[in-house]
């Protein structure tokens, strides 16, 4: 049967069998009109295997990265200032396969969610969609002010309005499929570090 015939059939059956009208609930009362707590975010992220660094500028981030990663590790960043600092060669192709040997990826996120340690990243922040997943280690920069308390505020944030692809990423890739033993680094990055850019007046 052709897909359009099936479409007709499915819609017909659905219209005939659906129950009586049931109104949508108002979910606005779940919204808390407060800022997300950096402390809460850090606590949750650390509990799920991520790390948090508080930094004043991006040079600090690069210093941490240089310390942790071997000189010949490929570090790739989408952030122009960091690209300069690490003397990154530009990406030549659109092919995500070319990022296969990236040891550390350094990208930005739009904002973080305190209740679950997640950050929201969209394709416009990725250069290539494979980057946040194919790297061995992921570093993400957020601004101290860009933390929301829960998913309710997250979907009110302008950054969740328009994108072609986006992901809430909460910590390093993981699995507990083998006898419920938690292992970090299933298919995505083995580690995730959030670098929180503190407000300038906080130094």
């Amino acid at each position, binding site marked *: 049967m052709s897909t359009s015939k099936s479409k007709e059939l499915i819609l017909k059956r659905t219209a005939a069998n659906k129950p009586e009208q049931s109104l949508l609930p108002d979910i606005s009362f779940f919204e808390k009109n407060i800022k997300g707590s950096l402390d809460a975010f850090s606590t949750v992220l650390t509990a799920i295997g991520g790390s948090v660094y508080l930094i004043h500028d991006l040079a600090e981030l690069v210093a941490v990265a240089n310390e942790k990663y071997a000189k010949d590790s490929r570090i790739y960043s989408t952030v122009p200032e960091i690209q300069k600092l690490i003397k990154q060669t530009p990406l030549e192709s659109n092919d995500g396969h070319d990022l296969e040997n990236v040891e550390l990826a350094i990208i930005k996120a739009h904002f973080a969610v305190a209740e679950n340690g997640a950050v929201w990243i969209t394709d416009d922040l990725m250069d290539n969609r494979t980057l946040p*997943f194919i790297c061995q280690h992921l570093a993400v920069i957020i601004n101290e002010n860009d933390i929301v308390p829960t998913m309710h505020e997250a979907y009110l944030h302008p950054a969740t309005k328009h994108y072609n692809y986006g992901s809430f990423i909460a910590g390093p890739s993981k699995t507990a499929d083998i006898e419920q033993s938690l292992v970090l680094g299933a298919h995505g990055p083995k580690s995730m570090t959030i670098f929180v850019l503190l407000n300038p007046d906080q130094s």
Partner: protein
Amino acid sequence: MTEHTTKDHAALAGDFNIDENRVDWHDETLWWVRAKRDKAVNQLPEWEALREAASLIKHNVLANLDTYLLQFEANAIANGVKVHWAADADEHNKIVHSILQDSQVTRMVKSKSMLTEECGLNEFLSKKGIEVIDSDLGERIVQLAEEAPSHIVLPCIHKKKEEIGELFHKHLGTPAGVSDPQFLTDTARAHLREVFLTRKATLTGVNFAIAETGEIVVCTNEGNADMGVNLADVHIASMGIEKLIPEKKHLSVFLRVLTRSATGQPITTYSSHFKSPAKGKEMHIILVDNGRTEQLGREDFRNSLKCIRCGACMNTCPVYRRSGGHSYHTAIAGPIGSILAPNLDMEKYGDLPFASTLCGSCSNVCPVKINIHEQLYKWRQVIVKAGHAPAAKKISMKAMALTLASPTAYNMAGKTARWVLKHAPFAVNNSLNPWYKHRDMPESPERSFKEWYSVNRKSSK
């Protein structure tokens, strides 16, 4: 793929219970997942309000399903996505195959999809010469073992790490006797990375489909959906039509309740929103009915379609924990499976609604408030009325009905039972009496309460 077509749940559960230590291990592992869920949800004072909101949103979806389907399709197409409609499992499989043929793909990688288990996709494609590799670690393990997943979220929860170690030794070349989860996972990471890097087509499931925007959301802890899709040229997303939600903001409710219910985590590592394919790539969504519109028309059972496939009902079910997912001989096991499957084939799955004590725990952990235990009771009535009860049971139930409708017959039956227990215990204390296998029979009192009352009190009736 093992399929127990002749044994029913009771028989399969009986087999499962032969190894008591293993039952204890399986039971305690899943109870621990339930306990993690409890810890997570008790951190949200608004938890019960979230469940109510999730339930009401899903009620609205079912009541407007045709409208949302059309809205979703239009928006997905506007996003550059190809939308297909499949009336049944076979059609779904054929659509997947034709998409692969159009792209000249003979090797596909799959992210987790219970819908494709339901449709038997892997076997179908295999017969057409298409290799499918499951990339979710638990799914890959059962794939290597040539078994079906036993749990919708924790596919190989029934497997011990030593058994997994043996599988990896046989198929992936790990040293014999190694069972360390870190080592085994690292091995799988390397093996599946090679698969991701070389496959041109990836199939994923869909956790939520947003009518308002035409996008889909896929939730994983491993990142396999994103690895697979972003490295391939073709993304195929298979979804049951009930996976729709009306607006993007409703994700706030569902993403808060889903993983807390499933594993006790506040959210999965990746909650990825696929809206438009990357430049030069293709994205397909297959909308699948396969009995869902039929279930929609069943007034007593349509609420089972609210399910967001979290698995909390399985973790909390004392029967599931002590019988294992394979005892349900269907793609989706446990309490939710037992109210979904009879809709597909009442004779084949008529045993499932009886694999329960109707304790009600499932309904009360369900994040979308499906009245599972009530539906189990109602399915029993439907199944018996349709003639699927064993003949012996029909006769004994008719006899019971007559006895209990007549005070004289009842008194006589009771007296006889007590006499037999007292004077001829061997008649019931034997292997023909299933009760007697692990339990002593009750003692026989001198008098029934009725007899005592007649002597010790006056009654007005």
